[in-house]
């Protein structure tokens, strides 16, 4: 039997690997989205884009940090206890930062109305 709280992963850790990859995919998406938002908003919306760009950049940083925190366990070692525990504060930070970035873009687009 496994001790309570230990990661019992009968599939050799594939769930952890999928989750780590999901974090990395999200981080990559943030970097692309922040770059695209800056590139496309800048000519149209002037100064307001800096708010959106700052928020998007901060969001990308938070998600990249969270992605790095979710490390892939080495394949020959068992998943360490607690490796499967989601981290509430990190998820909350990603949520708030994403919402702030989205609202920033919304404000930029609304204020850039011709």
């Amino acid at each position, binding site marked *: 039997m496994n001790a*309570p*709280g230990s*990661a*019992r*992963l009968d*599939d050799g850790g594939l*769930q*952890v690997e*999928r*989750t780590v990859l*999901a*974090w990395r*995919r*999200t981080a990559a*998406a*943030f970097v692309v*989205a922040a770059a*695209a*938002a800056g590139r*496309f*908003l800048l000519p*149209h919306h002037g100064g307001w884009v800096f708010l959106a760009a700052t928020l998007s950049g901060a969001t990308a940083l938070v*998600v990249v940090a969270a992605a790095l925190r979710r490390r892939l366990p080495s394949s020959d070692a068992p*998943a360490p206890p607690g*490796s*499967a*525990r*989601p981290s*509430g*504060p990190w*998820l*909350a930070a*990603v*949520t*708030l930062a*994403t*919402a702030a*970035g*989205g*609202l920033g*873009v*919304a404000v930029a*687009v*609304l204020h850039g*109305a011709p």
Partner: protein
Amino acid sequence: MVRRDVPARWPRRVFGRGSDPDPRFSLANERTFLAWIRTSLALVAAGVALEAVNLPMVPGMRRAAAIVLILLGAAAPAQAWFGWTRTEIALRLGRSLPPPLLVVPVGAGLTLVAVLLLLGLVR
């Protein structure tokens, strides 16, 4: 009921209840959270792209469609967070899983966007 004897893991509203579920379910829940975050990004990016590419259509309708997309994108993180907490609580208590609340608004919003784009392009 929130237990007081367990070490504090935030949020207590989630981790203070029930017992740790099978890690695979928690990991799947975390991936669903991330999928909603990426959905938020895609919606915001679609709204920005719609304004940026300057489609030959009625400007008011294009603008309305872009704003609907961006507002849906700004709301999606709420589904990500509250969906994650509610699902994790249900897993810890062995209850049935809650339905995602934002599915209908996102579906309705995307339909509205499609209608706006069609009308704007045809006119």
